[in-house]
């Protein structure tokens, strides 16, 4: 089933066009990987999906991105509600300078998801468990989140993202700042999370895309060159440029 449907998406930074006519469908409860050399626009596309590009003054987005039959670029769309439904994990772990507990409870608090302290405790515990962090931090929930190791911090950010039960989770190179062990843990986690969430992951590493994703889209110079099932893209690409990239001729 199609979860996100993007039609003719163009993105401009000031006068410079960063994305050209992107048409990409995202399957529900699967992992979609976006790959391509740096500066190809894959992160820009990802940030379109929860309108994080609004934060950048000079950025303009054209075209339609339809989620649940609703165009998120429409004026009537409410970004706050949109971002509640579509969570995001960033390249560098960015826990708030607060306690672990407060980091997780932040989203549910602002969205009014818990009526009592018990309910909140439950949400925090569940989120941390889902992010496979609970065992490591359950005794120090009230210590600052910035005191954790890099991998733990990133899992904390994932826990924070899933605390509001989003339908989609966007991951912008979530492992690029992590060591191999932490990366393996996060990849395992992604596999687990796709049961409940649709996941879109931007990654630099083709190996990672091959390991975690079911579908892959290849971006180059602001264009979506090719997309389809991961198997097909990696084993049997249609486009010459995709093949060159996969085989390491450039990038």
């Amino acid at each position, binding site marked *: 089933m199609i979860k996100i449907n993007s039609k003719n998406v163009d993105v401009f930074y000031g006068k410079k066009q960063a994305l050209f006519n992107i048409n990409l469908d995202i399957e529900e409860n699967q992992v979609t990987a976006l790959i391509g050399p740096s500066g190809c626009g894959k992160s820009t596309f990802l940030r379109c999906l929860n309108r994080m590009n609004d934060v950048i003054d000079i950025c303009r987005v054209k075209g339609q991105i339809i989620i649940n039959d609703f165009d998120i670029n429409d004026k009537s769309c*409410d970004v*706050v*509600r949109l971002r509640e439904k579509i969570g995001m994990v960033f390249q560098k772990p960015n826990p708030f300078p607060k306690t672990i507990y407060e980091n997780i409870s932040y989203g549910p608090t*602002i*969205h*009014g998801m818990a009526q009592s302290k018990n309910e909140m405790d439950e949400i925090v515990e569940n989120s941390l468990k889902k992010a496979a962090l609970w065992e490591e931090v359950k005794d120090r929930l009230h210590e600052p989140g910035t005191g954790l190791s890099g991998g733990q911090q990133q899992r904390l950010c994932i826990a924070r993202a899933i605390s509001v039960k989003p339908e989609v989770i966007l991951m912008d190179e979530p492992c690029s700042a992590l060591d191999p062990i932490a990366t393996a843990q996060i990849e395992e986690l992604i596999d687990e999370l796709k049961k409940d969430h649709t996941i879109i992951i931007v990654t630099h590493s083709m190996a990672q895309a091959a390991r975690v994703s079911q579908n892959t889209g290849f971006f180059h110079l602001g264009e979506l060159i090719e997309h389809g099932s991961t198997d097909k893209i990696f084993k049997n690409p249609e486009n010459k440029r995709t093949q060159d990239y996969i085989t390491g001729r450039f990038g």
Partner: protein
Amino acid sequence: MNKNKEKLLNSRYRAEKRFQFYGKSAIFLALLFLTIFIFKIFSTGYTAFQKTWLIVPVTFDAETMYLDENPSKEDLEDADYFDLALQTMFNLDKSASEKQQNDLKRMVSYFFEREIKRELLNDPSLIGKTKDVYLTASDDLDQVFKGNYPRDLPEDQRRVTDYQLKIFDQLVEQGRVESKFNLSFFTYPDSREAELAGIASSFMGSIFSILVCLVIAFPVAVLAAIYLEEFAPKNRFTDFIEVNINNLAAVPSIVFGLLGLGILLAVFQLPRSTPLVGGITLSLMTLPTIIIACRASLKAVPPSIREAALAMGASKMQTTMHHTVPLSMPGTLSGTIIGLAQALGETAPLILIGMVAFVNTIPGSPLDPAASLPVQIYIWAESAERGFVEKVSACIMVLLGFLIIMNLFAQIIRHKFEKKWS
């Protein structure tokens, strides 16, 4: 559930709006204060640039001046004009009683006989003739003419008597009252009489103080900044100097006044009330500002420049003096000007070293007693006479004008000459 959610979302958006509103109002309030402030100063001050004159017919009667038939230049110089001047005023109303005569005399400035004397010295042939002479109106009548004086107050609560107002109104009707540009505001020294008070003495005092301040603070600060930024080893002692500089920048100015009083006046026995002492005190205050600015612009010179010069075999001193320091000059200069602008507006330390004394001569050197523009503002603001209120505002306008020019100048230097490193 969904309805609750809707409600929560709405209230969150209202909170967002409220917060933005607070932010906007804060900016608005700050700008409002600024506007009120500037408006108030200008609206009370602009009238001070005009001065009211009474045009009175003076009969230069040789007898009243106790002069002989053919007086020499010296005779005219030494003659007694007071009785003539008095007679001139009494002639405005020949039927005036003694008390009313006194009122008449007070309608013009305190030294009005000098204005009559000047007229005659310019043209000695006036003896025996009658001429309309411009006499400076008293400060109260000046205010009446400018419409700043509450005429409807009961007579015993104002300094202008009903009689004076009557005569004044007659003069106005006859076109014998005129308002002209107040040149004396810029050329006269301070005076106890508002209509004669000018800013020349305090202006020169400010100029001398700032010059002394510049001559001392600029070289010392630049040398210190060069040392700290380029040569100083990183150790406890230089850290200590650094902490010292940062703290000095935040020490209240009045403490520097105490320093000036306790050391410069009491120990070194420098002359009180002089721009020399004022300038030294201000220079100590400005020192940290310039050091910090100079260090920042030295820091902004990229290391590659230094490395290039060193690689050519220049010594460290040559590298610094030939390359780094010249490149940092625009930033240093604009920092210096801003520091001097601060010093120019400073009042409290100058009061403590006695620059608040009444000075009715224009100082000719930094060793003559003087006031400064801000101190002049303080002195006049403390005076009771209504005539000083507009003078204060006008003096503030002059001071602000200078500050604006200095700051603009600093901006221009920074933008025009500062090299942008990419």
